[in-house]
């Protein structure tokens, strides 16, 4: 029986972020959501379980509000949850997040066969947690995966690279980071949402992680970017085109 772990991050839904005065960003009326790519990771875990049998554990690391996130995650087909929450986990860097996840998987969720991650998170998009967890656990990691098939005892995956598709095989257990094209995540039905809170959840907090270190990366400020338009006009003739090319070269856009 497969044990599949899907890791999801509970992030601010960017559509609610407003620009404040000057460089300020207004987070006062934000709502939260499951990080976009992570929804595909969870969906893939559940689809594999549905076709091959087994159990899906959805895992998240976050602050107090991740409780609601866990309900959302459990409504999407996972069987069990692992909720690692602590107020000090609100702004972790990828290295510490990976330490926490790897420790939880090793000490509480083993044995396991597959660990799914989104290719990157909707907020930071550092794309580090998947590979770092795999390194900590000493298992292989397949990144940028757009298709998965199971053969005898190993998994075959299609990786989307810049100019080609790479087909790779790896033995289980394996960590996989997925691209959005791998599937279309389900929209939970009403019963799925109502039943989510009845599913078993393993609750962990900072005291379950004795080796927990304060993140090395500290977020000092988040500022809005102002895009200033040059408003340079070019004539619609040969001279205009060559001066446009010159201008783009000057800005380092063309070489």
């Amino acid at each position: 029986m497969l044990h599949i772990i899907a890791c999801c991050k509970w992030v601010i839904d960017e559509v609610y972020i407003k620009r404040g005065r000057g460089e300020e960003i207004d987070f006062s009326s934000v709502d939260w959501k499951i990080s976009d790519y992570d929804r595909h990771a969870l969906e893939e875990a559940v689809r594999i379980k549905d076709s091959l049998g087994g159990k899906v554990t959805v895992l998240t690391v976050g602050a107090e509000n991740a409780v609601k996130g866990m309900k959302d995650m459990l409504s999407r087909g996972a069987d069990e949850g692992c909720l690692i929450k602590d107020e000090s986990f609100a702004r972790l860097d990828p290295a510490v997040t990976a330490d926490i996840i790897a420790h939880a998987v090793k000490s509480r969720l083993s044995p396991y066969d597959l660990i799914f991650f989104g290719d990157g998170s909707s907020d930071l998009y550092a794309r580090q947690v998947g590979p770092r967890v795999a390194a900590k656990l000493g298992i292989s990691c397949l990144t940028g995966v757009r298709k998965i098939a199971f053969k005898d005892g190993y998994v075959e995956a299609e990786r989307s690279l810049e100019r080609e598709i790479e087909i790779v095989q790896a033995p289980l257990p394996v960590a996989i980071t997925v691209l959005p094209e791998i599937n279309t995540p389900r929209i939970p039905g009403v019963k799925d949402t109502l039943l989510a809170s009845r599913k078993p959840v393993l609750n962990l907090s900072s005291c379950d992680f004795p080796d927990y270190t304060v993140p090395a990366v500290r977020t000092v400020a988040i500022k809005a970017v102002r895009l200033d338009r040059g408003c340079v006009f070019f004539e619609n003739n040969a001279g205009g085109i060559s001066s446009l090319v010159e201008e783009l070269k000057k800005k380092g856009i063309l070489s």
Partner: protein
Amino acid sequence: MDFKLTEEQELIRKNMREFCEKYVDPIAAEIDEQARFPKEVFEKLGAGDWMGIPVPTKYGGAGSSYLTHIVAVEELSRSCAASGFTLSIHVGIVEMLLLLYGTEDQKQKYLPPLARGEELGAFVLTEPGAGTDVMAAQTEITRDGDDYVINGTKTFTSNGPNAGVYIVFGWTDKSAGRKGMSAFIVPKGTPGMRVGEHFQKMGIRASQTSEMIFENCRIPKDNLLGKEGDGLAIAMTGLDHGRIGIAAQSVGILQAALDESIKYSKQRIQFGAPISRNQAIAWMIADMATDLAAARFLTYHAAWLKDEGKPFSREASMAKLFAAEAAMKHTIKAVQIQGGYGYCKGAKVERLMRDAKITEIYEGTSEAQRMVISGSLLR
């Protein structure tokens, strides 16, 4: 006091929003134009347990509260007010009446296919000469051995052409006055019942409306809903529940009008600045948002009273009256904000304005709501 929805209700709202963005928004203008009932949308809603939210799980529902259903109607109406209304009638009137008045056999037989969205419900009360004046109905239902026989013509039946389960009202004993009307469950395909003329409506065009004609329509006595003579009370109970749904539909329309107005007024440049900088426009939006908040609270409060098992008839009428009139008033403003663009087909606000008008008319006109509210105060 607690003004919060539960986390589950918030997630259910978000899921309905996502459902609408994926399956409803892309077709909403087209089904309005073609007056087409979006069967495919309701099949998907059925599969996601949206068609029987307050129905207990043993009858195939989701086993949640009436308020949860109301939130779903609101969110669906924000994308397509016609579909929100179809959902409201189906759950708020037909399923609720079966739950409240049905025998165990009737519940087991009729509720599961309704809750799964395999069948659609219809409430067959209005007649050509009997709108607000329900007692002016002409439909007669006579006992004949173990059967009843229905004769009469009903009009403005929502879901008429698409329903599978009809709750039909008529006189079983006209001499008994208010105790002379009875309600019956009539499944589609019953000989003697047929769909008459289809009505071409100004708004909610994706909800189909027709006459229903009964000519010696014979139904077994097991299809009597409640007791003989309970018809009027059943109809009024159905409308009390349904009105909270219409209030929610109006709230959804209002929210859509506000969304469109904010978006447009920040983009539209006149005299070198977005029109949202003009106080005339900004104040329209302030009034819209304020009435929306008030309408939403009245609506949720009425649904909450229902879930608490408290009387809610007056509050349902208040919510429906206020929300409907606010929806009409502000969708006109939303068109005004968009000017000529808002007056053309393809502008969502044009559809919202047409859809809003019916909320002041059906399931009791605004005047009828004022009768209910004042009647309960001046008794």
